[in-house]
């Protein structure tokens, strides 16, 4: 199958990239149109004659958009750090140690990752409400664990499996305990894997919508996906601002994807390929 790509192939690739990127391109071009060009006769022109950054200014001044970004950042970071931390212990034990019930635990982790979020929503909502944790960061961090923890354990087990056993044996012969082996030998080698896991967990937490929508309803604690979705009023939709906000959210993700694409792909595909 390995053959040189012909010119036709490149033409096809350009078309493919254009189709995939078209929504982003259009949204970006719309975000710098004045509202007269967004609607009306010029709505379908590619470029506006008078590009403007008014929409961007409005997003940050007329909406608590910065607050949404900060909320998303805080919730996703804390969720990521603590779940990857806990998942790494669990994954290490599953990948490297001998004990009974491993398959059951892995099966449990896998099934939890398949749980529909709606099935846990009503009890979690009621519990958080009774504890007074709705409209707080912790109120989102707790339920996000159901999403990020199984994912992290899953990816990390695969990563830990790939670290050669010889190193551990050597540490054992030198008299290191399990925890010493973990911190001194395994952990440094697992850093790339942990990092990959962290990226995926962060994206998963950043993009979550259902819990964010129900638990944090006050503007002070709304996350970005919910915040942008709620830009639309009952009768009017401020498309200019929405386009600008979308661009603002997308750019960091594009940079992240460009920088970490190899890691993301290796994390996404871990477990689906037997090497």
């Amino acid at each position: 199958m390995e053959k040189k790509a012909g010119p036709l192939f490149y033409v096809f690739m350009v078309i493919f990239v254009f189709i995939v990127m078209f929504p982003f391109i259009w949204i970006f071009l719309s975000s710098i149109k004045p509202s007269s060009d967004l609607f009306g006769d010029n709505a379908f022109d590619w470029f506006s004659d008078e590009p403007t950054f008014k929409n961007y200014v409005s997003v940050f001044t007329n909406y608590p958009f910065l607050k949404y970004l900060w909320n998303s950042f805080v919730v996703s970071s804390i969720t990521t750090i603590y779940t990857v931390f806990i998942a790494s212990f669990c994954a290490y034990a599953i990948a490297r140690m001998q004990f009974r019930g491993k398959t059951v635990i892995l099966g449990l982790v896998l099934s939890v990752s398949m749980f529909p979020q709606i099935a846990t929503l009503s009890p979690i909502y009621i519990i958080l409400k009774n504890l007074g944790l709705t409209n707080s960061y912790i109120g989102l961090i707790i339920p996000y664990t159901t999403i990020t923890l199984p994912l992290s354990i899953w990816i990390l087990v695969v990563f830990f499996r790939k670290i050669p056993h010889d190193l551990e044996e050597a540490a054992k012969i030198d008299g290191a305990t399990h925890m010493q082996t973990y911190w001194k030998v395994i952990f440094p080698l697992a850093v790339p894997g942990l990092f990959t896991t962290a990226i995926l967990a962060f994206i998963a937490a950043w993009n979550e919508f259902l819990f964010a929508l129900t638990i944090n309803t006050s503007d002070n604690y709304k996350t970005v996906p919910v915040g942008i979705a709620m830009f639309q009023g009952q009768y009017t939709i401020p498309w200019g601002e929405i386009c600008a906000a979308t661009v603002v959210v997308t750019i960091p993700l594009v940079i992240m994807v460009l920088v970490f694409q190899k890691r993301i792909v290796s994390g996404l595909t871990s477990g689906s390929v037997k090497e």
Partner: protein
Amino acid sequence: MATDSNKPKIDKCEKRTAYLLVAPALILILVIAIYPVLQSFYFSLFDLRLNDPQKADVHLNYNVDLEQYFYYYPFLVDDLTEEVKAANGTERSRLKKIKQNLQGLDQNIRKDAKENYQKVKEIHQNFESPSTSLSVVKISDKTAKSFQSTIEKVNKQLKQISNDNELKNEKDVIGLANGLKGVIFEPNYIGFHHYAEELKSSRMWSSLWNTVFFTIVSVFIEFVLGLAIALLINKAFFGRGLIRATVLIPWAIPTAVSALMWKFLYDGQYGVVAKFFSEIGLLDHMSALLSSKAGAMFSVILSDVWKTTPYIALLLLAGLQVIPKSLYEAASIDGASKWKQFTNITLPMLKLSILVALLFRTLDAFRVFDLIYVLTGGGPANSTETISILAYKVMFSQTNFGAGSALSVIVFICVAFISMIFVKVLGSDLLPESSKK
């Protein structure tokens, strides 16, 4: 792994450490995932409505809310004492009778509520609020029923008396007596009633059908396109990294944001994609895209295909890359056609990747929520309402948590059923090698 199976005995210390390491993750999963699902099922057996104080919590038995009770009872008895003093003749004896009835009820409640009665009374006298666990106390069916019937009677009698004669504090007495009607919580356990209702509801079935239709069509298109893309880019070419990044971006952005983007592109007046479709003759009218039933479903599926085909393509590409090239070389020496090579080498070697991709995509598509919630809200005329959307609406718009929980349990059962089919086909291939014996 060879080194593992060579060890005949499991080291005891290692075992203990292993359980210690696994414990935090397991406890979290049990508390935050398993327990809520069971709780959802439990809620679904009750008539639970958050906007109705009588039904805001699950009650297996009759309960009395002592805090509410002390709001009314002591003042009513005091007022009645005053009234008795002021009244005369038959009226006086009637009022006296009422007061005695109420005091009788109080005796029963005091007996059933035990020490909580005194505790809540003291808290109430200090003008503080007791906790619900202290204040809401189980009482016997007999006490509850006699309370309800007596209070009903007392209310009627007081109204009659106040109609016939003047009472000193007419408004207070009647208001307090009326308030006592609300202090008893009836058991709201209704068994499988919600399920019976939902299984009869045409809205539930149509939302289930929408979900199944959406899942099958979108996953099928995504799979075919994803496989084609993976086969195409599985070769060395200039700019491969760029393609990979391009493909990852739709996957990485929040679904809610991508749904909003598409909503703009689909807009009935100024949406460029709607314009494009109507110009190539796919639509009669630009506005038909989001306002017609078929158009809305088509839009939702198109957005989903755009967002998740890349994910499938990447999974399949990873699978393609580990197929040994020698297989293809041998096959072409034997004179096998490209198609033969595809069906006899590529597909069987790719089986695991395909099944894993299909499993995760199917489950994701089946529980779809944010895409549809933002793009169409389930409309028009519920034509894109999936079962998760319906469950959410029942819970949070109608605040009917019992019925909503029943619906979410139905989603759970469907998802469990789908994954069981896949797991049966995949078997232990799904678990990382380490766990296999």
